[in-house]
């Protein structure tokens, strides 16, 4: 039973990561390979701010979200502009441009962190002392930090989903995702939307990194695994589908925990990759996605 609950908890964090990626793919049709590094930067930001400034942890979390937004928007402004310009040298190869540049960005951020902070992990303070445990009902005993982190994460997730669905900004994002050209005719500034989407993505991933920092520590390569998992989730749920990614996140969270306990611990990640390939081969649109027509 507590395996299941752990799965749900992890699933929430995965969902935060996957949501951002899904929004980017939906509105820009690209995969952000540096997504894991937003997570990593969130983790470092949390750890460093919390350790060096003695302010309540709530404010630290807010700062991390703020930093995440700035990071996302900066990346979009500096690097993603050529995606919308038709007559750059990359022309028809915009997909490939996005792949290389986000991959390069990922390598850069990882190694920059390595250069500046060194390879040793920095651990941030838990929202509650890490050894503290809480009883849930009569059955389960769980670290209270995890519970609170889960609460924060789930709360933010729900807010984010509601924003995307019902707020005016969210509707604009949906419009651009469905038909970029049509949206621009309707007067929507799609480059602004791209900035917003990247900003949200950075904030959510950064928050995820911050919440998990006390557990997994901040180190230069900590973002690699969450990134990969996000890719698997987003592909599984259907690229660009928000409900798909959320569902996929929880599915992965739960199955992973069961798999780790009952099947094999070492090959756990390899299974994830295998699932990715199988989904891409057999049902590339994922659970909720749409097939695209070519000619």
């Amino acid at each position: 039973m507590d395996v299941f609950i752990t799965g749900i908890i992890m699933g929430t964090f995965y969902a935060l990561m996957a949501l951002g990626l899904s929004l980017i793919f939906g509105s820009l049709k690209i995969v952000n390979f540096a997504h894991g590094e937003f997570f990593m930067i969130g983790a470092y930001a949390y750890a460093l701010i919390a350790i060096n400034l003695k302010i309540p942890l709530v404010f630290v979390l807010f700062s991390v979200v703020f930093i995440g937004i700035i990071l996302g928007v900066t990346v979009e402004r500096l690097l993603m502009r050529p995606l919308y310009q038709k007559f750059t040298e990359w022309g028809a190869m915009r997909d490939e441009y996005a792949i290389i540049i986000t991959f390069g960005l990922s390598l850069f951020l990882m190694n920059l962190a390595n250069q500046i902070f060194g390879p040793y992990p920095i651990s941030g303070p838990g929202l509650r002392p890490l050894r503290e445990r809480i009883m849930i009902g009569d059955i389960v005993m769980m670290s209270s930090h995890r519970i609170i982190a889960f609460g924060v994460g789930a709360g933010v997730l729900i807010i984010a989903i509601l924003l995307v669905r019902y707020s005016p900004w969210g509707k604009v994002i949906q419009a651009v995702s469905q038909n970029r050209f049509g949206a621009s005719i309707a007067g929507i500034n799609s480059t602004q939307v791209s900035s917003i989407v990247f900003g949200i993505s950075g904030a959510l991933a950064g928050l995820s990194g911050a919440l998990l920092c006390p557990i997994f520590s901040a180190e230069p390569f900590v973002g690699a695994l969450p990134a990969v998992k996000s890719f698997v989730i987003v592909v599984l749920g259907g690229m660009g589908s928000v409900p798909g990614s959320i569902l996929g996140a929880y599915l992965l969270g739960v199955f992973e925990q069961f798999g780790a306990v009952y099947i094999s611990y070492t090959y756990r990640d390899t299974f994830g990759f295998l699932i990715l390939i199988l989904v891409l081969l057999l049902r590339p649109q994922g659970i909720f996605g749409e097939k695209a027509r070519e000619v």
Partner: protein
Amino acid sequence: MDKDAKLLEVKGVSKRFGGLQALRDVSFSMDEGELIGLIGPNASGKTTLLNIINGYYPPSSGTIYLDRHRIDSLNPNQVAKQGVTRMFQATRIFPRMSVLENMLTIAYAVRRIPSRDIVQKARKILARLSLDDMIHEDAGNLSGGQRKILEFGTCFMANPKLVLLDEPFAAIHPELKGILEEFMIAHYEEGGTLLLVSHDIPSVVASCPRLIVLNVGTIIADGPTEEVVKKDEVAEAYLGGIV
């Protein structure tokens, strides 16, 4: 070839995309040496029909024969090797290859003319189309109109049995349009077979002896041009008359 065998036979072709019926029981045939205009309002299925003939997707039902070979289940490259060339509505050329290389690719790929003649033929066609001074220029550096002409030129490189032209005259300078029309008529007069899809009604009516009209996926008229343009259904389909 015996007189009864048609070059192209489209029999009962229907195509469904999910909930959308794009083509419904389309049948017609073309003789060798015919120039047929295919017209119809937007979303009538013209491009879908061309895509199916080309092999980009199979029909949901029906068959297509080219020179008595069945081609409806072939891949586009196999259909091309049978002698069908296609010009796309949104110009498709290979931007990072030179003009010459664009012409050569199709010729080597379909293998319908001897290798030693290929480069020469490419130069000849390019000269007729006034592109020979750009021969080594990357196709991506060409203007929109020049790209269209290049794509047009590739259709005639490899001894085609059937040329499918999808809106070749759309959105280009009248001068360039003249070059294309001239080339097209010349090919026709030498015995080539062409299917011309166009919204430019006056032009189609002027050059094509036979007209097929498509509306909402079905053929509503098929016959000599003078007769077809007088039909009520055709005028109705275009909401306000054509000629």
